[in-house]
């Protein structure tokens, strides 16, 4: 086990990885990375690396789970055995079952599930490397995979955490900051609808701190939302530019 350094934030207010309190980790997004899924996406956020695949809408199996008025949304969040320092058993843990549920519920309001009754839409989230904030990254990447699968949605869902570490309010916590800090609050947000679809918190915050942390996280979500849009467009923009270049 790595030892937690005593100071997670230095005198200037900078963090262990050199970020300021309101900086996001560098994010790399890629859409359509898997050939066999209907939609897919990949995210690298700092050291966290996550793949998401989407199938559907398709026939529901087992059949009795089908809903007569809307599509069934299923979600599996899974961490690879090699994603953390100590080998994680590949069997779904209590935590993974819970995260699957909260991620599903964070994405559900963004989709027009009522368009495709008696079908299922399945999301598979595979955490390849974890360094904190994987539920948020999982939401970001699954929303992109859903859009890539051509599933109609109100808008992309962005997600971001903020919290309190050694007395400072900070954005986008890493694993060490989460474990050594006082509070962590992941949220998922749809900027255009102005709707929060996930809000969790552990630790302690005063009312004022809560409000500040929430606003920080919302700002983070807005930044991430822009990155998501760019990533979704990137594939098509590249083709268009290549073609236009050839014509000239």
């Amino acid at each position, binding site marked *: 086990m790595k030892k937690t350094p005593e100071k997670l934030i230095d005198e200037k207010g900078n963090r262990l990885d050199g970020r300021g309190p309101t900086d996001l980790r560098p994010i790399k997004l890629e859409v359509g990375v898997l050939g066999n899924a209907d939609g897919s996406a990949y995210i690298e956020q700092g050291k966290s690396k996550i793949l998401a695949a989407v199938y*559907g*809408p398709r026939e529901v199996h087992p059949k009795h789970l089908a809903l007569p008025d809307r599509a069934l949304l299923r979600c599996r969040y899974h961490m690879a055995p090699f994603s953390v320092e100590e080998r994680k058993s590949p069997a779904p843990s209590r935590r993974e079952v819970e995260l699957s549920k909260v991620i599903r519920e964070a994405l559900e309001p963004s989709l027009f599930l009522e368009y495709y009754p008696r079908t299922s839409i399945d999301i598979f989230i595979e955490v390849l490397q974890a360094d904190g904030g994987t539920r948020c990254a999982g939401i970001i990447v699954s929303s992109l995979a859903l859009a890539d699968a*051509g599933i109609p949605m109100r808008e992309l869902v962005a997600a971001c955490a903020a919290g309190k570490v050694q007395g400072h309010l900070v954005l986008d916590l890493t694993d060490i900051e989460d474990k050594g800090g006082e509070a962590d609050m992941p949220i998922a947000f749809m900027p255009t609808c102005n709707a929060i679809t996930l809000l969790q918190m552990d630790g302690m915050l005063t009312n004022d701190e809560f409000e500040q942390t929430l606003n920080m996280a919302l700002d983070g979500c807005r930044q991430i939302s822009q990155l998501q849009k760019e990533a979704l467009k990137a594939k098509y923009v590249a083709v268009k530019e290549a073609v236009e270049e050839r014509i000239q």
Partner: protein
Amino acid sequence: MPIFYERKQLITPGDLLAEGDYEASENTYKEDNKIYASRIGLMDYDQKKVYVVALKSFYVPRVGDTVIGKVVEVGLSGWIVDIRAPYLATLRASDALERPFNPRENDLTAIFDVGTLVIAKIIAYDRTRDPLLSIQEAGLGKIKRGQVIKVTPTKIPRVIGRKGSMVNMIKQETGCEITVGQNGVILVSGKSPEEERLAMMAIRKIEQESHTNGLTDRVTEMIRKEKRGEKNA
């Protein structure tokens, strides 16, 4: 009634497209008199409607569509056919036999076995019922030869082109017979594998560059170039 994007501009889900008395058409939705996109695609509009031509989508059955599907199950009185839609389609035995069906006399696997590819027409479908197929028309039924390729269903109109200009051009240039299923499955059958390869290459190019201008000319040029290259080799 402002519109916030230009025609053919690339749009992502959630982008605010227009405000006011427009009708929210394909791949858009309306909330508080504002129209937003619900899929990634290219924005377009006319006097009344605002719509998005999706760049990636799946096939949703429509009555009257010709589709290419694969038999996945042989039942007691018909077949279950996968038409690459959210719902499996059924094809009744009586439809294929053109006479009343008797389970003791007729062996369904002898007509279409599992894995058979069929060209069929959707004759009934709504939200509560799975699509029903028919093969009682010229050109429908079992596929005997050729190759099939799959493209995103939203790109089918591009493959066909305005009044069939694109698909006719490919037919003419390559000499292949081409059947386009609305579900994004295309059958190409030519006299030689080389012809089929050319036609398939052209279709792949259309799929990849569907959102760009002057595509027909570029595809024609590509086919001609390929043909020439062949002769020289």
